[in-house]
């Protein structure tokens, strides 16, 4: 028999990392720091700017009260921008998620090349937005538009006066919404595929035996079951779209004559490009109440799903 080695206590500090009360704060600290420095600080700074007369030409913190807010609300450009933002957000959600659902239903079927099709569908996500928008810009181009070429070829539009997608106010709004919907589409597909695969097979079989046809199965069984996931996707997409300026900025720069301006792009133009930080901050803060409502809904939907 071998002798049992004698137990010698090791120095205490060697076990410091075994202690949850030390390790916990250590690990959570970066996250808290991040939230404080990069989320909370800019937010309070924005509130502060919005009630001051801060511009990059006159960086003074002179207090002006609610004046900036009245200026912005009364501005016609802002009113138009607010309406645009809603059209842009809601339109892109409807188109993106609806097409996403249909595509997901198709991609759930078994067919040769399904893997490739699924990979292609996710592509708009993987392409940098600037590159993708450039491609769309060519498709909407006044002279070389492949969309117009197609429409002329099938005789839907007059070759003499083809639609100027980025030059006419209504069409430009449709164009930016469609491009953004195209960016949301893969997200919709992924969410719906995840939802469809989460529905238990027994439930679908039971519905089939119980006499439910395609429509009833889809809209009375599957959709209600995956509703919580879809709601989360919807709110997520809404927040993502509401705060986004990339498509608008890259495609139209908010034009023509502010016809496609959204809150993000207007704030960027006023606050950064024109240097009027105070008014830019006010425009940004208009996002806040809407986002707050969205986040409350999102958290509620999440909680309902947990039960």
């Amino acid at each position, binding site marked *: 028999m071998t002798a049992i080695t004698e137990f010698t206590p090791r120095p205490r500090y060697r076990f410091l990392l075994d202690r949850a009360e030390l390790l916990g704060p250590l690990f959570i600290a970066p996250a808290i720091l991040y939230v404080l420095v990069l989320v909370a600080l800019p937010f309070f700074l924005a509130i502060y700017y919005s009630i001051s007369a801060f511009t990059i030409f006159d960086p003074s913190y002179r207090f002006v009260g609610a004046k900036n807010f009245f200026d912005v609300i009364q501005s016609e450009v802002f009113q138009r921008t607010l309406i645009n933002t809603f059209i842009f957000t809601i339109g892109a959600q409807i188109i993106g998620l609806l097409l996403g659902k249909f595509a997901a239903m198709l991609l759930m079927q078994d067919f040769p090349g399904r893997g490739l099709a699924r990979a292609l569908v996710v592509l708009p996500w993987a392409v940098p937005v600037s590159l993708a928008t450039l491609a769309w810009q060519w498709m909407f181009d006044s002279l070389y538009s492949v969309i117009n070429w197609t429409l002329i070829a099938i005789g839907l539009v007059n070759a003499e006066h083809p639609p100027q997608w980025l030059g006419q106010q209504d069409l430009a709004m449709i164009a930016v919404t469609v491009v953004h919907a195209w960016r949301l589409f893969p997200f919709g597909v992924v969410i719906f595929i995840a939802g469809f695969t989460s529905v*238990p097979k*027994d*439930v*679908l*079989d*039971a*519905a*089939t*035996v*119980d*006499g*439910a*046809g395609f429509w*009833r199965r889809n809209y009375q*069984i599957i959709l*209600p*079951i995956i*509703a919580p996931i879809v709601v989360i996707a919807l709110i997520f997409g809404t927040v993502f779209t509401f705060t986004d300026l990339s498509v608008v900025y890259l495609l139209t720069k908010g034009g023509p004559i502010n016809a496609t301006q959204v809150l993000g792009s207007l704030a960027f133009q006023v606050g950064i490009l024109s240097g009027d930080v105070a008014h830019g901050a006010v425009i940004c803060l208009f996002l806040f109440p809407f986002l707050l409502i969205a986040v409350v809904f999102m958290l509620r939907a999440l909680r309902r799903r947990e039960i």
Partner: protein
Amino acid sequence: MASVSTIDIRKQFGEVTAVDGVSLEARDGEFMVLLGPSGCGKTTLLRIIAGLEKATSGEVRIGGHVVNDLPPRARGVAMVFQSYGLYPHLTVWNNIAFPLRTQGTSREQISRKVEWASRLLGIDHLAHRRPRQLSGGERQRVALARALVREPTVFLLDEPLSNLDAKLRASARSELKGFQRTVRTATIYVTHDQVEAMGMGDRIAVMDHGRVRQVGSPIEIYEYPADEFVASFLGTPPMNLIERDGGSLGFRPEHFLPKELLNGFEVQEFQFRVDRMEYLGSERILYGALDGRAAKREVTAKLPAHLALDGISAGAWHPFAVRERELRYFDREGRQTLNR
């Protein structure tokens, strides 16, 4: 009310043959059990009868009509699934009402039938709950009520008791059997549990590798197994099979007794070496081997626990015997024969 039959049903999944030429009939009002190990094709066969799966070849007949090309909803079948398949977003009431709604039944008739079915199964007080608020046994009853409410021509049950705990399973078994007696609808019940099969089935079809090995009443299946598979699938422990010129000899452990207990009967005698013993409360299982040719196979004996085991000890040889009438003979292919 009607009978259900399958005629030479075959089902291929790619290279794999899941069901290999099954012809079966569940008569009107009969409780038919499909029994077999997992992967033997019994669930696939049930799904083919329901119309959820298309047979590669063969015919399904319900009430004498070929229903191969009818969708599930037109077959008049009701099915209860292993995990019940309740609609999680609907209340119990709406779950039960769902199959009626799809048929366009009138509102008052729906509420009358839902109430009738839920009262029959004792779940009328749960009407407004959702499936996740129910216990396993309650879920199973809701699934049954949903199957019952449309008054189907045939019930298809796919291991409906396997998600219940052992105690509940015993009571659910007798309830289910009683329920079937009341509604008198042809029922096909899939299980891998021989106790369920023996306890509930009017007839049992034992399946293995996509084929039916034997169809018969529980007594026939147990007493006269058609082949070695059936003999060794049923019974705990299963039938002893020992080699004998060109075939095998079988006898149930409970018929393998100390010789002195069988004085005065026509018996066949064996020398039995007891290796170990298990005491199970109501009975004692003895594991060991026989002398001679069959020494390699383990042989078991099942004795009532109250029997005094005078002189029987592990490691020693004892004279054991089986009554001649309890011996079964199997030929070279494993099929039961009458000639010895």
